């Protein structure tokens, strides 16, 4: 069966290696008109991989361009308008908090990961390791927060090897914000970054578009307002470690019980000069109740619950009338 669609391509041949800014190269314009199944070169281009094949056939492989390629955004928009459902993603729908106490930083997070209205992961970890003295809580798309924090964590490790010194929080901050700004908000990661380095304890929030704040106490995620209500009314400077942990737990619980996107347990991470404590599931205020200790057994046949025989009784005596009853 031959599909009568041919691709018409108009390509501007610019040598990318000579250009100073390879980002300014115009992408090949493809208008989908016809294509033949037989010829690989004329398949409808729907992914960068196909473009790569075409490029390879026409010019030498040059250095892949850095930065986000926005080429497919118009096509995706057009498809969504025509009714194509784009794939869903796992959002964390979260409460994450951080505060500075007298000796360092305390971070807290809930443990629910949602996929729309469904709880996808009841006990996920939202406090990510960045460096031995720096941890980062992430809200937003789970894949984005994981990937971004892992990436910057690797970069920090390499930097530590290079400099021979402990990582500083502002280093992690700058790496994260530059990364997120370059992706113009498409990497949906809202982070609370905290740590203690030679210059003291630091706490920052980073928004998906790349802006940052330096704060004494911070909350992010869908439960941020509920948690912020607790912080604004009860935070003061110079809290002790126990007071700090209690306040963080209280704020996360406020998010868990007052916000639908947050739930399950409370994770806490205390970072002080020279040491850190990662308290996974520090509080579990939502245990499974009413579990049958004997377990459930289901018989393999249909169970007979009740046998009752009711004889049919005639309510009306049918008296046959002379002749047919249906005649007029």
């Amino acid at each position, binding site marked *: 069966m031959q599909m009568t669609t041919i691709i018409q391509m108009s390509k501007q041949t610019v040598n990318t290696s000579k250009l100073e800014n390879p980002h300014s190269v115009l992408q090949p314009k493809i208008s989908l008109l016809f294509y033949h199944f037989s010829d690989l070169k004329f398949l409808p281009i729907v992914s960068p991989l196909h473009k790569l094949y075409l490029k390879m056939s026409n010019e030498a492989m040059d250095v892949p361009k850095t930065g986000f390629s926005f080429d497919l955004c118009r096509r995706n928009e057009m498809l969504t308008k025509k009714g194509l459902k784009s794939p869903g993603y796992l959002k964390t729908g979260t409460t994450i908090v951080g505060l500075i106490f007298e000796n360092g930083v305390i971070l807290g997070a809930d443990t629910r990961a949602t996929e729309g209205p469904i709880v996808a992961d009841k006990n996920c970890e939202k406090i990510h390791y960045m460096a031995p003295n720096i941890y980062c809580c992430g809200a937003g798309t789970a894949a984005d927060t994981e990937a971004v924090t892992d990436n910057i964590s690797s970069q920090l490790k390499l930097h530590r090897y290079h400099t021979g010194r402990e990582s500083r929080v502002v280093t992690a901050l*700058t790496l994260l914000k530059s990364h997120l700004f370059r992706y113009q908000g498409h990497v949906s990661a809202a982070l609370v970054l905290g740590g203690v380095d030679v210059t003291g304890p630091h706490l920052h929030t980073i928004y998906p578009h790349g802006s940052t704040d330096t*704060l004494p106490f911070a909350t992010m995620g869908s439960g941020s*307002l509920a948690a912020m209500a607790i912080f604004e009314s009860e935070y003061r400077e110079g809290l002790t470690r126990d007071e700090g942990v209690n306040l963080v737990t209280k704020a996360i619980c406020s998010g868990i*019980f*007052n916000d639908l996107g947050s739930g399950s347990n409370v994770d806490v991470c205390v970072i002080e000069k020279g040491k850190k404590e990662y308290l996974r599931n520090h509080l579990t205020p939502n245990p499974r109740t009413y579990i049958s200790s004997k377990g459930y057994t289901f018989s393999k046949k249909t169970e007979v619950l009740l046998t009752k025989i009711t004889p049919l009784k005639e309510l009306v005596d049918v008296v046959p009338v002379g002749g047919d009853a249906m005649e007029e």
Partner: protein
Amino acid sequence: MPSEQKLGSAIVDTVFANMVSSQNESSLLSSEGDSQRTQYPYVTGTSVIGIKYKDGILMAADMGGSYGSTIRYKSVERLKQVGKHSLIGASGEISDFQEILRYLDELILHDSMWDDGNSLGPKEVHNYLTRVLYNRRNKFDPLWNSLVLGGVKNGQKYLGSVSMIGVHFEDDHVATGFGNHLARPILREEWREDLTFEEGVKLLEKCMRNLLYRDRSAVNKLQIAKITEEGLTISQPYSLKTFWNFAAFKNPTVGAEGSW
């Protein structure tokens, strides 16, 4: 006779068709002839918080009227008395609140004209408001308000809330607007049945301070109203103390001068 029946049905059909076609022309949601419908609010008040305490009801609201993103009016009284036993607080469109006050005025007037020694209590007023708001919403012409209604009658405390679509409920503590997100967690944590007047005021001030920090349309000028079996008092406007002296606010770039 069949022929007559057919004629009759034909007439009915044409009449019905005309009706349907004219309905389609000026359809239910057209805007040519219905320019009176409320599409969006103009001058709005922000949240109202109400709690039950030992002797009655306490309610707090600030005095701001925002016109979009500017704070246009700073002396709007959003807490008002209704009859002998009730207190109403409103957030949302101020002109619709004034209209509601006129309806309530008429209601109370007609009630007192009966002169029967009985007067409408908070539960009745709440029910009346619910009906009014719900019916307006059904006509796609809502009164753009979220109301808090509280009062004491015959020793019974009552605190309820109605929204612009007619959602109504009764509870020990209610909040409208941003108060739902910022005040309700605090109230859920710290409200008790036997709050004294001072404790109640402190709790309300805690919530209002929170709103002042985190709601962009809040102003630092608020009134607190108290209603008990004896009667109603609305306080004079006053402002809350705020704290801005955190080290991170004063010097956010410590250890990394020049960063942002």
